């Protein structure tokens, strides 16, 4: 309980915008679910060569290594967990300091190669290569993982990205 107070939680997602460019968004929430920071990328679009050369690994490279890493690095604070609805981010868990939790959503296929965990009605995935994340989550963040609607913040990010696009 004391851990959750003052802790911050990151929510990472991406949105395909005009011309198939991707805009990444990263929302940092406090323990009450209120926004502390919001970061977004400018539209990112892989070229044809990258699409060919990265092949099936393009998503993990683009979302995990480039967009996700750029966003979390830009964050001024340290988050306890990075939640994402992008399954590809799980593949590059080693790049991040904190546990990565994949939250499957209804409009994105849950093709994560991860270990499934259940907290209340929340079904999440963690990296198979980092089994120690499970004990961290269970020991310290059970309350958050059980009580929060983990899919909801991604909706906020999508709306915020739309707002930034309108302002651009």
């Amino acid at each position, binding site marked *: 309980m004391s851990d959750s107070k003052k802790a911050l939680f990151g929510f990472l997602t991406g949105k395909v915008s005009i011309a198939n460019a991707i805009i*990444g968004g990263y*929302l940092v*929430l*406090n*323990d*009450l*679910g*209120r*926004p*502390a*920071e*919001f*970061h*977004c*990328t*400018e539209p*990112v679009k*892989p070229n044809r*060569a*990258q699409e060919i*050369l*990265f092949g099936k690994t393009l998503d993990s*490279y*683009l979302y995990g290594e*480039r*967009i996700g890493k*750029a*966003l979390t690095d*830009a*964050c*001024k604070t340290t988050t306890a967990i990075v939640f994402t609805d992008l399954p590809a981010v799980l593949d590059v868990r080693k790049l991040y300091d904190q546990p990565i939790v994949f939250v499957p959503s209804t409009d994105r296929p849950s093709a994560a190669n991860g270990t499934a965990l259940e907290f*209340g*009605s*929340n079904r999440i995935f963690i990296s198979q290569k980092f089994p120690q994340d499970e004990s961290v989550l269970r020991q310290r963040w059970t309350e958050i993982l*059980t*009580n*929060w*609607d983990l899919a*909801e*913040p991604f909706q*906020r*990010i999508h*709306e*915020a990205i739309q*707002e*930034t696009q309108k*302002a651009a």
Partner: protein
Amino acid sequence: MFGERKTATVHSEFEFQVDSRIIPTGWNAALRREIPVTTVRMPLDERLPRVVSLRPNDVRVKTRQYCFPESPSWSVVHQTNNKPPSTATGTSPPNRTKPDSQTRISPPADIVKLEDRLYYLLQPPLETTLTRYELKMPFHPFPYQFSGVSFLFPRHACVLADEMGLGKTMQAITTIRLLLHAAEIRSALLICPKPLVTNWVREFNQWAPELPVAVIEGDQAKRSWQWTLADMPVKIANYEVVLRDRELVNGGELHFDLVALDEAQRIKNRSSTSSQVVRSIPRTRSWALTGTPIENSTEDLVGIFDFLSEGFLSSGMSPRGLRDATKDYILRRTKSEVLTDMPPKMFRDASLDLTPEQYDTYQRAEQDGVIQLEGMGASLTVQHVFELVLRLKQICNFDPVTGRSAKLERLEADLEEVAASGKKAIVFSQWVGTLEILAEQLARFGPLQYHGKIPSKKRDGVIDQFRNDPNSNVILMSYGAGSVGLNLQFSEYVFLFDRWWNPAIEDQAINRAHRIGAAGPVTVTRFVTLGTIEERIDQVLSQKRELFESVLANSDTPASFGLGQDEIFGLFNLTLHSGKRILAA
């Protein structure tokens, strides 16, 4: 079968002989000579094949960041609420991760800075916030009430103009509660009519029990101390107290993060002292709560907006211009829009003939009165006409000589039925004298009185008795004291013993009973005596009601909604001499 066909191979052998001899041609010697070998140095092309390098790691990602201030949350000692939260139907909502609805806050149109817009856009749904702050609600709010809270929350200037009975009080309190907990505000001043102070205190206790609330009252010294209490985030004062303490509240030493006006039509007249004093209170946010932002004319709205943002609206703006300018600042919902399953409100006009005694008295009074008015010539004013109207209306209630009353006879008959079925009824009149006579005549129904002669401190007790005493079937109320703020939804019958000038006031009165939580259909009986001034006023009121509805329905509207001087004179077919247009309140 093609697959079985084989190709036959034929082998033949024969001898092949060639005759060979050396012929002396001189070539043999040449063949024996050694071949001279000479070398030629040829430089090789040292250029390497061209290589095209693709650098797949060159996806450059630029980020933009928005940081939001983390205000320390306002800490309160949570009072234990033993009553579990329940929905309107009395069942406890399930404890689940995903709430049934998610009401998000939208940034107002006048917030243009992207960072500020994102701040509101990224806030959690209201239902989530209430859960996270562990704020309990005594009843599960309706979705439209959450929408109202999301409307109020980000706005620094707005009008919540819901129809009476939809819970403006609850929406305002819940928003104040959330703003305080989120440290968006630290001090709120609620100004309301004096009779409603206790109602607001009761509502705060119900909807925000953890918030300390101070009522500004008592003598000058006590009030001065109360105004400056720093540990009271919510202060409630009535309009009269604010006027009395104008030097203090306008002095510059006090500042409120939020000032909310209940029944904000009280300041519709911009030149009134009330309006001037309230407008001068130093504040950050300004909210106006009123079910009738336009009582008589669009000038009323201009007056209310002068409190929100002085000069934002101006006199003479067209109705369409007003609608366009204010659409992001006003939220109005009607019961028919949001409470589709609410019990119906049924109007039953009781058109009555005066008793013979009343009729004789009435005829004499009207004829004499009109003759007197006509004899006044140019000195005739609208006040003279008003006086005659009031005198005639009183005769329509009771014959001053015999005390006979056609309305009373009908009311008694109706109340017999109300009492027999164990129901409750509210009777409205504009005169305390009429109510006092009714109290005597209706003694067998256990009448209670709620009007200007009843001290404020006793009024809550009157309401409680009416609610709980099975022998009290009727409460007699004046429009002035009982038309706003009271929750009497356990009453299923409303009688308008005489009619008010303004349909909005009548609506407020009716909606004491016809509001959220109404037990069943509300029957409204409007008494009108035929062939009298009441019938003529009723026609004017009907026209005004149509005009109001046309404004609220956002259709084209005429310039004024008031009862003009010419209309008042027209009640007696009197000639309008001159003078500017006067609106009846």
